């Protein structure tokens, strides 16, 4: 399926990291480093800032607008369709993020990425579209999607994290290896973000997503600070706080939700632990690579000073083997990182989004409860007014009762809907999770196999040299 191909394609890209060429550009270096900078800096005259939807969710769900003219297998509203198995087989869209290019100077500089979409889906206007986007555009997209869908219980894939330190180095024109690595890491993360977003059947059809992928000019996103990864976390925490402050605890009639929440909690703990261990492994493997290279040089020097000819040659050969092995360790560290570490990082962030969605459900329930409390009060007030002689107030009270009855009904509908959505979303999420982990771990094991095969080759070549010492 194309899913696996996509994943494979972008992993192939990342495994070729070492041969990735970086176009050198000359920049004037900005001497002073200002305080915390954001991607979103000064307004440029030709772009009109458009405020993204506020983070506070609306009560009524927003249904995305259908723009396709032809009937298509994807032409379904997200409220229908429990089973989307067949969609997967006809899922035909490839996205790549590439060619990072620095625009501008000093602290106002930013990176622009090429986003290429290849698809046969009819909702797109062309088979192949290429646009240029900057990091804040991605954050802007995510903020819109989150505000539209999160309160409905949709798991919106989080955007990559902002990094002030990493970006500053790039801005001031440091052309060193860590800047190159940072840009590559971000490029890869942005690509994965888009792939995950379009994999979601509802998000794929969202007009903001389509605009992002197709439109040559995109309105600049402002206030992306609010809805960065950290921003989402803050929002989620606020919802969680609201839940904790509830006077009436939700009576969980559905054990499924309690069970799932606990499972995701456990998963979160273990994935974070695993992520930390893998990051440590990446670090130590890089260290091993450096130390092996250093030893190789030292062994070569030792070989040079050794006055027994055959031993001298063998030591030089040993130095060569170790040099090849250091490269092997370097490549393996890259695989460790791009395959496993980044996957784990992505999932830690995804699970935060999942937890957020559960909290949204709680919040919805709380609203429903509040409405019921309000209704009760209005009924009591009306009952009191029955015996007073104030016909206008009585009518008003009756009107308010009707209003709040409506709100209660809506609240109950919302709660039912979000519960239904979450069940479906979690099912989809888990399916994707299983697939992702399987594919990536198998790919990772294959990289380990390759490393060992190379090791065997190198040492097999060396053995006769060692035996030849006479």
């Amino acid at each position: 399926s194309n899913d696996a191909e996509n994943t494979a394609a972008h992993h192939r890209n990342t495994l070729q990291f070492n041969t990735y060429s970086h176009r050198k550009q000359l920049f004037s270096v900005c001497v002073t480093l200002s305080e915390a900078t954001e991607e979103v800096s000064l307004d440029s005259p030709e772009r009109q800032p458009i405020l993204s939807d506020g983070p506070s969710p609306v009560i009524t769900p927003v249904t995305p607008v259908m723009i396709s003219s032809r009937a298509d297998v994807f032409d379904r509203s997200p409220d229908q369709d429990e089973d989307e198995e067949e969609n997967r087989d006809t899922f035909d869209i490839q996205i790549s993020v590439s060619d990072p290019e620095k625009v501008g100077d000093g602290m106002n500089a930013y990176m622009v990425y090429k986003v290429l979409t290849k698809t046969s889906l009819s909702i797109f206007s062309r088979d192949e579209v290429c646009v240029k986007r900057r990091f804040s555009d991605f954050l802007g997209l995510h903020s819109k999607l989150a505000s539209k869908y999160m309160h409905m219980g949709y798991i919106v894939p989080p955007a990559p994290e902002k990094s002030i330190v990493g970006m500053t180095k790039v801005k001031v024109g440091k052309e060193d290896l860590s800047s190159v690595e940072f840009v590559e890491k971000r490029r890869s993360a942005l690509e994965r973000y888009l792939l995950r977003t379009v994999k979601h059947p509802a998000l794929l059809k969202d007009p903001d997503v389509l605009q992002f992928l197709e439109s040559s000019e995109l309105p600049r996103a402002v206030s992306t600070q609010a809805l960065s990864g950290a921003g989402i976390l803050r929002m989620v925490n606020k919802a969680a706080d609201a839940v904790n402050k509830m006077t009436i605890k939700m009576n969980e009639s559905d054990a499924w939700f309690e069970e799932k929440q606990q499972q995701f909690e456990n998963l979160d703990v273990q994935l974070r632990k695993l992520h930390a261990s893998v990051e440590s492994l990446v670090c130590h493997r890089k260290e091993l690579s450096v130390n092996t290279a250093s030893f190789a040089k030292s062994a070569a020097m030792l070989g040079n000073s050794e006055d027994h000819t055959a031993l001298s040659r063998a030591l030089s050969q040993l130095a060569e083997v170790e040099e090849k092995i250091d490269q092997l360790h370097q490549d393996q560290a890259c695989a460790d990182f791009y395959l496993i570490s980044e996957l784990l990082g992505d999932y830690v962030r995804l699970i935060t989004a999942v937890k957020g969605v559960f909290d949204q459900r709680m919040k919805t329930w709380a609203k429903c409860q509040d409405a019921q409390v309000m209704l009760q009060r209005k009924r009591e007030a009306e009952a009191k007014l029955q015996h007073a002689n104030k016909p206008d107030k009585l009518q008003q009270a009756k009107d308010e009762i009707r209003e709040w009855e409506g709100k209660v009904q809506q609240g109950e509908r919302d709660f039912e809907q979000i519960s239904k959505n979450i069940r479906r979303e979690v099912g989809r999420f888990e399916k994707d999770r299983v697939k992702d982990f399987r594919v990536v771990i198998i790919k990772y094991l294959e990289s380990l196999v390759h490393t060992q095969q190379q090791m065997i080759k190198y040492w097999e070549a060396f053995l006769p040299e060692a035996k030849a010492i006479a």
Partner: protein
Amino acid sequence: IFLCVSPQQEGLDDGPDFLSEEDRGLRAVNVDLQTDATLQVDISDALSERDKVKFTVHTKSTLPNFKQNEFSVVRQHEEFIWLHDSFVENEEYAGYIIPPAPPRPDFDASREKLQKLGEGEGSMTKEEFTKMKQELEAEYLAIFKKTVAMHEVFLCRVAAHPVLRKDLNFHVFLEYNQDLSVRGKNKKEKLEDFFKNVVKSADGVLVAGVKDVDDFFEHEKTFLLEYHNRVKDSSAKSDRMIRSHKSAADDINRIASTLYTLGTQDSTDLCKFFLKVSELFEKTRKIEARVAADEDLKLADLLKYYLRESQAAKDLLYRRGRALVDYENANKALDKARAKNKDVLQAETTQQVCCQKFEKISESAKQELIDFKTRRVAAFRKNLVELAELELKHAKGNLQLLQSCLGVLKGDT
């Protein structure tokens, strides 16, 4: 912590695949020695208690010098040092490469870790604690085996040397079953040592600067000075490389544990997947740890040993250099005496003594340095071959585990 180990005890790893060759024939690790039936020395047992290691030195000999044909004594590290220093101080042995003293047993780091583990026992699960304890014990055991091997090699070198094996102190060391009471040199002696070393290094520079008429020794001097520095560098770099390797193996261990937990918790099909991968990593990280240990033994230890031996060879050259200087001074003194016609006989005697001393040292030094080269080449050959063979064995082991696991995982989908 009490740890009683004999060098023949097998390693703690599972399966015959993971036993390393070091458990057999430790003696010949870094030196190519012919074992002579007339005098065989080995360390048959060792006991580690708190801050002392007690080595049981076992001797088998047909020589008439000893009261019995087979006997054992218990010795500590300081007594080995005493023996070594007695060789160094003996003028008769000036013309030989004195086998380098074994390094002091150093369990400090390992002991610290074990203590920390004990303190942190409350904060981890029983499984985690047991696992870490086992690993630390294995580490302790490895260091212990190494120190036994290094002390043994020293004794074997002495026993194999045609002249040193006859040394009286050596025989006392082997046979006298009481305490040699050499522990802790008194302050005066320590100060003397200090000054001796200072003078030596100053002299070393002086002597190294004088060009030798003898091509052989001139070449050896140049060679040894450079070689020693390069070996020092390689030794340090190999240590660092192996430490990183160990750290990476530790990380894989933690990853395996977490994957196991994930496997037991996961509600999807991934649970079996995680458990299988966890099992795989448990095995591969054992192999990685083994690789680091073997590299340590075959490469790092080899380099460390030749660092010490090349220093001992340099010391020999220094002693010869000193003898040469004395000889040249005696010549000059003789010329002066002859010119003044005063104390000529005395000057002649001194000159002859110096000449004989110098020539004696030169003769044996030449042979010693040739033997040193032979031993070095043989030791490097043996260890590099074994290193390559072990690397291959482990890589193939790893590969087989990975491929078989991949086969199962791919088949499951």
